[in-house]
């Protein structure tokens, strides 16, 4: 096997390996004691959000503009992929005092 021949391929693979995580990151948003943390988070379109519910209560992450509505059972984690850019205020439908903001860059 001549290493030289595969160099461009390997370089390309390396490039992909580095590029993919930069394009699609995973951010974590926790629900604990009826609070979303962090209260303000930033992400990009295509990123995955891990919604981690540490409470014994069912929560939702419901965008006021209707962009997303995620149900998270007690002590469970749910993932969702962000599809639209924008500054999205979201809350829990069951506990509307829980409010936070997610800024999604294009």
């Amino acid at each position, binding site marked *: 096997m001549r290493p030289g021949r595969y160099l461009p391929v390997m370089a390309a693979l390396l490039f992909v390996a580095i590029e993919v995580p930069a394009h699609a990151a995973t951010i974590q948003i926790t629900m604990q*004691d*009826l609070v979303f943390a962090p209260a303000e988070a930033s992400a990009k379109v295509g990123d995955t959000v891990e919604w981690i519910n540490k409470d*014994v*209560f*069912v929560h939702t992450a419901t965008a006021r503009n209707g962009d997303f509505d995620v149900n998270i059972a*007690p002590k469970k984690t749910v993932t969702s992929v962000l599809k639209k850019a924008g500054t999205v205020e979201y809350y829990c439908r*069951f*506990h*509307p*005092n829980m409010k936070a903001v997610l800024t999604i860059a294009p």
Partner: protein
Amino acid sequence: MFVRLSAAIAALSILGSAALAQGAKPTDPQIAHIAYTAGVIDIAAAKQAIEKAGNKDVKTFAQDMVRDHEAVNKQALDLVKKLKVTPEDNDTSKALSKQATEKLNELAKLKGADYDKAYVANEVAYHKAVNGALETQLIPSASNAELKSLLQTGLKIFQGHRQHAEQVAAKLK
């Protein structure tokens, strides 16, 4: 409706004044029993509302009550098991249960919009009273840190219930 104090609320007020008068604090096993009983009462009222309520917001509110109070009570049971504490029945719990049964029977006789209004009005008053008892009596008296923390989480969630009940009540007018 508003003049007539709900019986359960009266019992909670008695809890406040009796404990203050005697200077006696409820013990952790008693606190656990009172908190659990208060939850059971609200769940029973909510289940009746899910059956009887005509208004969609009232039904949704009742479903929220069942879900949240069952979650808190399950947590409370897990905690007493872990702490090896046996919840202790007491006069406050007994008065709460007795009077809640009376309230439930009273509400059972109402129909339609009258029922919806009476249920929600009682929920506002009941959560107000329970939250008051939690804040001034039960939380300060709790000696176990985990019990105290659970009561604090309960207070936070029940404050939300009161606001929610007030919003529903305002819409029914």
